[in-house]
């Protein structure tokens, strides 16, 4: 049964990208365990505004776990201690009365901090722009049922396509690698007949862009898969490696 709890939140505050940041601790009383983590952050901000202080800046939007905008490292875990959820779906029932909760931004070379807990993830857009698509113009395409796609292939492509681009995989990786993110897109399109024509070019272009933007290499620690809120499997990284090697051998 949900009850009300008193907590302390230790939040990373940082004015701008180049400014030194620090932790600030705030006390919150009577937080319902039925409220979401971000609702708790709303209550904290309401409290700060009423005290004449600057509210904590954090990214969030859909608040139903699909837009990938929310981030936050909570008590050492991206998207917090619950399994298979984003921060906006995390609820306060995962915490106890008297807890001190530490909240940090994604910390990775690829994601510079903008302010407080808000980071810049445009690098992900740039990787997709490098080749994460099928080159078709609007119009002039065949009928949707013209090419049958085996159900298992469509399903596996969908497993990969479920990626929400939140960046938890990068944030949790000790190498700051974006391999899980990149592999999800490469794998989705390599599995479908529509994506096959450009598969070699795509794998090379996306990996090259990822390297260029300062993301690290993959050493198969598996942390990304563990922390991915959408359960994207590292088997997609294996597929990306195959795609990439095949493409390179052809060169």
């Amino acid at each position: 049964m949900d009850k009300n709890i008193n907590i302390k939140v230790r939040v990373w505050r940082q004015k701008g990208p180049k400014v030194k940041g620090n932790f600030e601790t705030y006390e919150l009383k009577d937080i319902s365990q039925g409220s979401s983590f971000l609702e708790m952050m709303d209550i904290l901000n309401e409290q700060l505004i009423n005290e004449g202080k600057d509210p904590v800046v954090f990214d969030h939007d859909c608040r139903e776990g699909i837009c990938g905008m929310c981030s936050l490292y909570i008590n050492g875990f991206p998207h917090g201690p619950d399994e298979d959820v984003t921060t906006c779906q995390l609820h306060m029932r995962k915490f106890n009365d008297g807890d001190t909760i530490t909240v940090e931004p994604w910390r990775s070379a690829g994601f510079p901090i903008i302010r407080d807990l808000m980071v810049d993830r445009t690098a992900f857009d740039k990787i997709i722009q490098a080749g994460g698509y099928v080159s078709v113009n609007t119009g002039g395409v065949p009928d949707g049922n013209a090419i049958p796609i085996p159900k298992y292939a469509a399903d596996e492509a969908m497993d990969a396509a479920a990626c929400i681009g939140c960046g938890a995989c990068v944030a949790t990786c000790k190498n700051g690698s974006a391999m899980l993110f990149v592999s999800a897109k490469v794998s989705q399109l390599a599995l479908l007949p529509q994506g096959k024509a450009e598969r070699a070019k795509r794998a090379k272009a996306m990996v090259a862009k990822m390297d260029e933007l300062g993301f690290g290499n993959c050493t198969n620690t598996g942390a990304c898969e563990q922390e991915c809120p959408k359960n994207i499997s590292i088997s997609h990284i294996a597929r990306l490696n195959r795609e990439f090697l095949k493409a390179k051998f052809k060169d």
Partner: protein
Amino acid sequence: MINKEDETAKVENKTTVTDNKIKLDSKIPKGPLAEKWSSYKAHQKLVNPANKRRLDIIVVGTGLAGASAAASLGELGFNVLNFCIQDSPRRAHSIAAQGGINAAKNYQNDGDSVYRLFYDTIKGGDYRAREANVYRLAEVSNNIIDQCVAQGVPFAREYGGLLDNRSFGGAQVSRTFYARGQTGQQLLLGAYSALSRAINKKQVKLYTRYEMVDLVIIDGRARGIIARNLVTGKLERFAAHAVVIASGGYGNTFFLSTNAMTSNGSAAWQCYKKGAYFANPCMAQIHPTCIPVHGEFQSKLTLMSESLRNDGRIWVPKKIEDARAIREGKLRPTEIKEEDRDYYLERRYPAFGNLVPRDVASRAAKERCDAGYGVGTTGLAVYLDFADAIKRLGKDVVEARYGNLFQMYEKIVDDNPYETPMMIYPAIHYTMGGIWVDYELMTSIPGLFAIGEANFSDHGANRLGASALMQGLADGYFVLPYTIQSYLADQITVPRFSTDSPEFAKAEKDIDARMERLMNIKGKHSVDHFHKKLGHIMWDLVGMGREAEGLKKAIEELKVLKKEFWANVRIPGEKSSLNVELDKALRLADFIEIGELMAHDALDREESCGGHFRLEHQTEEGEALRHDDKFSYVSCWEYQGEDKAPVMYKEPLDYEFIVRQQRNYKS
């Protein structure tokens, strides 16, 4: 102008209604319904490739409509500037659409056709949409599926490899294509990938974390926007030959809705204030299956897809004492015997059962809860039960169909829907009303276009499930890229604009002054404090059941709220810097005014139709009662200035091809 003597005229600060048709040319092509669009395309003006390069188009928004339009226009060769309020186009709220997208493919051989999709959509919209627009929508629906498949959207498939379909409300055929419970995500990522490709090819320039704050008009034509860089807080000027608004709906006027936190009506509202007509503002959709409100601190409501009504059965206890015992926690729903359950949708609407359209399902839930049969601790909830489906299909099949939705529900409510029925309640979800557009999707301001949820055009008084994705992508991929050329063909000799003109300077100065004024209030309460108050007024008085007295009260209360907000809001931080509270304050100032216009429109429309339910106008059985003789029109509101009542023009809806009927989902 002819003043209409009616209820509206008696309200203080009265609104004026006129029958002036001259100002509203919907530009519907002549000819038989099925030939209008092809005939339009055959005869429209086009822009040749060399000239396209010289024309700039601003697209505000990167959801299904905005991203698909920006990508398609870029591919055609126009120079596109695309603005995104989030940090990436992939975050636009189209991503949260769950259930599916309709198309008239008839892959299931169950009798579907373009005409039937058209008819269902018109009927579902309670005969308050334009025939020609809706027919075109149904016509291009099939192209959308083909386009998305070609992009690599992983739609659900049968074992034979062909596309699978499911059923949705308001239809007797299975025409909904889906990708698990996250169809919106997959379609948006498809459009996002097309947009990303266009960006890579330098056909589109993308601006992320930018919000449009004003529209710039030069010599009566839309020529640019002022946008606020949300990271630096600075205002920036952008010029173009045409401006396309794809900024979504204004459901967040209600504070609690299924919309995302940044979803707002401000871009559309700035267009209204610059002279674009706002059409049918009172038409807001209340979605029947959302997770019920749990407390005062709640920030948003979560939708549970309509597709759940394919297999879930909606019920409340038959005995009022059982409902009471459940609310007090003395009884569990699973302990209620089959004969003591009231499957009220199946009882009232035998032909459509649990798959009645959204407005009908929402009102039926409210009716049961108001009568005292509601469940949950608040009594504002009904059950959506999968026990029968699990018995019939097995848990595995149910999990394969709805697994992600069940997981989402469990994380929020902490209850297992495989074992205990889900609790649901209606919530604001979508706005059918929006900026008025003609057949070419151009607003009443030349050069200003509106697409997707931001316009009013295709859903009438109620939108059917899985039709929002269809309309957004239809507008963006297959309609606007044609119709915008009819306007731009006359613009090829117009050189690129400088943003140094007095019109740009004035627009920037005005918005800067507005921000300055907000910052200087230094009042006592946060933006959210006022937004919650707005939400309560709207939900209580302009919500699911509206009546004249309540609407007049709402108008008065909104005036007071507006005054309080402008006197007592507190915004910390600086004006020209990243300032989330200032972002929110600018949006809320507009939401309050949008609320007022919604109330005016709801007061004018003395009938019930679709999502607009006037308690004074219902049948003996409690169904919506339209008055086609008086209200077969689109209400088009024109801004008259600060604190002046708006003027309303009527665009008559003359149905040439179908006969209006009382909507019947019973037999």
